[in-house]
Every structure is written in structure tokens, then in C-alpha cells.
């Protein structure tokens, strides 16, 4: 089985409150924020590895392959390399300025990559933590006319690897869908819970550590030898025009700092007489 994981380089989401707005609201400045792989995409890498290995022995299933693809600046190779250190086999980087990309263009470009690479599964994060759009998986699935599932919190690959049952975390509960491969799956946080991925190879009793795996030094060294092919975005032959335009950016209105109350009695009194919410 061949899995393609798209991965976006984003500014450190844990410091997103430190972004600045450039002069005149022209752009969002992320200077000083460490560029990291979009956490949801990192979970997509982790979940994909769990599909193609024996979790207990860490042996890879023969013939299976994980390719990581990114769109962005040259530096994004670093983030691809990290995913290869986790266990990805090779990488593709289509060079472009971040400003020239949006989710729609990335989805159209990915459709071309899928034509070339012919994966059985595209697994990606449900949204990038910078744009927060949550759209690429859905658009890609429509362009490819592949079945898809969003908000994936569990995956169960059938023994014949022809179908996957995906648990979708939706308002009010969990919907399970059975997809016939090839398919697109966009993953949510819980996809990296200890037993969220089943593949008929990893023993049912085996529990992964929570979250994306750490990359020990030997894996990092090994990843240096793995191939990352770089090419201009234009080489995919996709129309680079965007369907939306961003006019300006602003910081959200700051909340006025409140007061500290000394006890519950004062809190109740303020909520009644000042805020009038009790």
C-alpha cells in the first residue's frame, strides 16, 4: 500500500499569540516564531505509519511506502526531513512562496501529484494551524472523485487492504464510514490516541504511546540519506490563480484585563450587580 501525506510548514502554533501585523495591515509577520510542521499533518504521518507497520515489532509491511509532499519555500525540506526521520520513505517539495498558495491551489496541485504517484490513500491534517481553513482534503477528494472522511479519530484497515473504516469525530458523537480505497482521509487530534489505528498486523493488545512518535538520533541520521525531490510548483502544470484575495490583516480586539475577586461571595456579587449574568 502506498500512502501520500501532504505536510505544511507553519509558524509555531504554541506561540501564535506572538504574531505581528506588518505596516498598514499588509501581512502577518511570524518573525521569531519557530517554523514547525503543522501538528495535524504530523499526526497524519504518525497515523499513516501505524497503518503500514507492526506497532509491536516496528517491522514495516513489505511493499508499503509513505511519501511526504509539501508546497512552500526551500526551507520546508527541513520539515519533510523530520517526517522522514519518523519513518517516511521519500519526500517531494514543490517550491512556491507561501503568499502565492491557498488551500484551493494546494488541493489542485495535490490532485496532479496523486496522478503521478498513484497512492492508495492520501492522509492529511484536517486543517493547517495558520490558515485554519479545513478545506484541502475535501476539495482534493472531489477533484479526484475519491471517497473521503474528515475529522478522522480512528482508522481500521481491512485485512485485504481494500477498505478502511474511519471514525469521524463530529458534533454530538462519532460517525463511522467505510471507504473503498483509493481514498482521502483528513485527521483530527484523536487519531494519535494509543489504539486509534488498526491494521490487522499490529496485535490488538498493543497500545502506542499517545501522540506523534519521537525520532531517535539513528532515525534522524538515516533520514539524511532519504531522497527529497524538489521541483517548481509550475512543473505540475496547474493554474496558479487564486479564487480569493486577502485585503488586510489585523490583530483581534484585545480583551480588557479584568479584576481579581477575593472570594466566591465577591464573585457572585459582581456577577449579579456588575455583569448582570446571574
Amino acid at each position, binding site marked *: 500500500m502506498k500512502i501520500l501525506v501532504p505536510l505544511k510548514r507553519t509558524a509555531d502554533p504554541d506561540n501564535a499569540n506572538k504574531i505581528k501585523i506588518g505596516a498598514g495591515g499588509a501581512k502577518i509577520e511570524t518573525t521569531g516564531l519557530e517554523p514547525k510542521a503543522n501538528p495535524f499533518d504530523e499526526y497524519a504521518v504518525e497515523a499513516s505509519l501505524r497503518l503500514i507497520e507492526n506497532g509491536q515489532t516496528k517491522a514495516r509491511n513489505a511493499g508499503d511506502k509513505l511519501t511526504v509532499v509539501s508546497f512552500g519555500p526551500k526551507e520546508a525540506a527541513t520539515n519533510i526531513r523530520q517526517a522522514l526521520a519518523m519513518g517516511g520513505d521519500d519526500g517531494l517539495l514543490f517550491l512556491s512562496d507561501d503568499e502565492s498558495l491557498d488551500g484551493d491551489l494546494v488541493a489542485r496541485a495535490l490532485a496532479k501529484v496523486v496522478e503521478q504517484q498513484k497512492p492508495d490513500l492520501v492522509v492529511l491534517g484536517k486543517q493547517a494551524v495558520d490558515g*485554519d*481553513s479545513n478545506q484541502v482534503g475535501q476539495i482534493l477528494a472531489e477533484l479526484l472523485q475519491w471517497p473521503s472522511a474528515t475529522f478522522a479519530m480512528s482508522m481500521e484497515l481491512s485485512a485485504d487492504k481494500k477498505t478502511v473504516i474511519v471514525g469521524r469525530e463530529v458534533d454530538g*458523537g462519532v460517525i463511522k464510514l467505510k471507504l473503498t480505497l483509493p481514498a482521502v482521509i483528513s485527521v483530527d487530534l484523536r487519531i494519535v490516541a494509543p489504539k486509534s489505528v488498526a491494521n490487522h498486523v499490529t496485535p490488538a493488545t498493543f497500545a502506542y504511546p499517545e501522540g506523534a512518535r519521537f525520532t531517535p538520533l539513528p532515525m534522524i541520521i538515516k533520514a539524511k540519506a532519504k531522497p527529497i525531490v524538489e521541483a517548481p510548483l509550475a512543473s505540475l502544470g496547474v493554474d496558479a490563480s487564486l*479564487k480569493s484575495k486577502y485585503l488586510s490583516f489585523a490583530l483581534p480586539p484585545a480583551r480588557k484585563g479584568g479584576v481579581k*475577586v477575593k472570594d466566591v461571595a465577591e464573585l457572585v456579587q459582581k456577577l449579579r450587580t456588575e*455583569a448582570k449574568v446571574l
Partner: protein
Amino acid sequence: MSKILVVAEVSAGKLKKTTHSAISFARLAGMPFDVLVVGHGVGAAAEELRAYGAGSVKVADDARFANYVGEVFAPTVSEAAKGYSVVVVTASSFGKDLAPRVAARLGAGFASDIAGVEASGGALTYKRPMYAGNAIATMQVTTATQVVSARQSEFEAAAPSGGASSIEKVAAVDAPLAGRVEFVSFDEVKSARPELAEAKVVVSGGRSLKSAEGFKTVLEPLVDVLGAAMGASRAAVDAGYVPNDLQVGQTGKVVAPKLYIAVGISGAIQHIAGMKNSKVIVAINKDPEAPIFQLADYGLVADLYKAVPELTDAVKKIRAEG
């Protein structure tokens, strides 16, 4: 002529409150609008929608729409959307799944999870939170047809405006992908409490509650005496104290109730993204340095195991006095 198509959300035949936020969007955009209901056994829902000032209520009622499957809904919605300049759906998990599919099928630009709309010179301009709400973009979609998903917490539920829109039947369109995606089950989390996104009061708990039992014995009495919805931080959800769908944050639900009470929540950026537009924020935490205090209107530095039962008793007393 510019016209908006509002896509309604129904669940088991019942109209969901999310729909009313999408209607609010249409009213704010200041264009005539129709409403589309796709589902099975949705006659009553369609009837209910006649009172909101839509030109018509379009209804695609078919057994194949009994459960939401994006691949099955998207062709019918896209076909019905032809001739409209804007298609809007509320950014619930239904809308987030459906809207980009419809945009892709129509070749339309998509504005996701918008928090505001302004009409000027015949064009719509949107406000979009990005970076977990730490930046607000002003943007436009440049294609002739545009698809929008609207954030429920930013568009107050529309009230009926009277009148009786006409009802128009819409044929279900065949979905070529239907044979490759099968609906297996929906495990519903049933709760007698209000839905998080719709509640006027939300009480959320963090990891300091230490267990499912902690939520039950300490937090729930306060939730229930306030008639509130219960929420949680990601840490509490990850620890398994409460079900996933109670998570408030960038991932999870975005809420903006009249009163938000954060109990034992430190205030990670991802959590703040989901609640900072609440009208009044109360934080109870024993760590005076917790970042949540920077945005709380009222902060109480205290042991939650003592303060929360005290607060519950005080509210009970107020309620008893009427």
C-alpha cells in the same frame, strides 16, 4: 441578480439551530435568499423554515439522505446552488465537511469559518479568524459563485420574520461515489444539557479536576444549577475525563456564551481560541500566574474543590429566592 442559497442542517429529520446562524448571515449580507433542506423526512423542518423571509424553501427529501455522507449530499447541493452567487452553511462539523466539497464541484472560491460579513459596492467582504484567532483577515472571494461557511458563535440565531415562503421540491442528484462510501453507524453522545455552541452559559473544566469523577461531583452540580452546557480543555479530554465533543478550542467547539466559567483551566492558546469572544469570562484557578487570568473579567485564585461547591450553593440560593 445576486442571490444567496442557505443550506440548512437537519439531524434525524429535525432542524438544527446551526441553520439559523446561516440565515443571519444571509440577512446581514443584505441579499434575497432561499433555503435548501436536504434530508429524509424533513417536511416539518421545511415547514418551520417558511417563516424566516426566504424567497423559497427548497426541499430534497429522499431516503438516501437519511444520514449525512458528504459524497451523497454534495452533488444535490451543488446542482441546487446553480444560479446563486453565494452558498452559505454554518461551520458546524456538517458545514465544514460539506462546504469545500460544494466549492470544488462548482469551481467556486471558498471562505471558511468566517466571523463577519459586510456588503459594499455589490461585493461581500469577510472577516476570517486565522492563527487560532490571533489574526483577523479581511478577504473577498473573487469567483462568480462563492461558498462560505459561517462561524455559529459569531452569527446570532435568526428569529422568524413572519410570512410563508413557498416550498419547492428539488430532485436528488445521483452520487457516483455512493457505492464507495458506506455509512456504518452514528454513536451519539446523548445529553440532557444544552449544546455547547448554543448555550448561554458554559462551564468548562480542565485537568485539575483530575478524573471523570471530579467532573461529575465537582463541576456538574454547578453546570446544572446554571442550566449551562459543559465544556472541557483539551487536556481534560485527552485524559479521558469527558467525551471528545465537549472540547472547547481551536480544535473542538468555538463558543461565545453570555457567561463562560473556566474551572482549573490554565488557558493554552488553543483553548482561548475557542472561548475568548464570550461576553463575560470567569476563571477559577489556584495558580495566580495562569494565562487565563489575563483575559478573564473576573478571576478567582482559589482551590476549585472549595470554590466551585461554594459557588454552586450561592447560585442555588439565588435561584431559590427567584
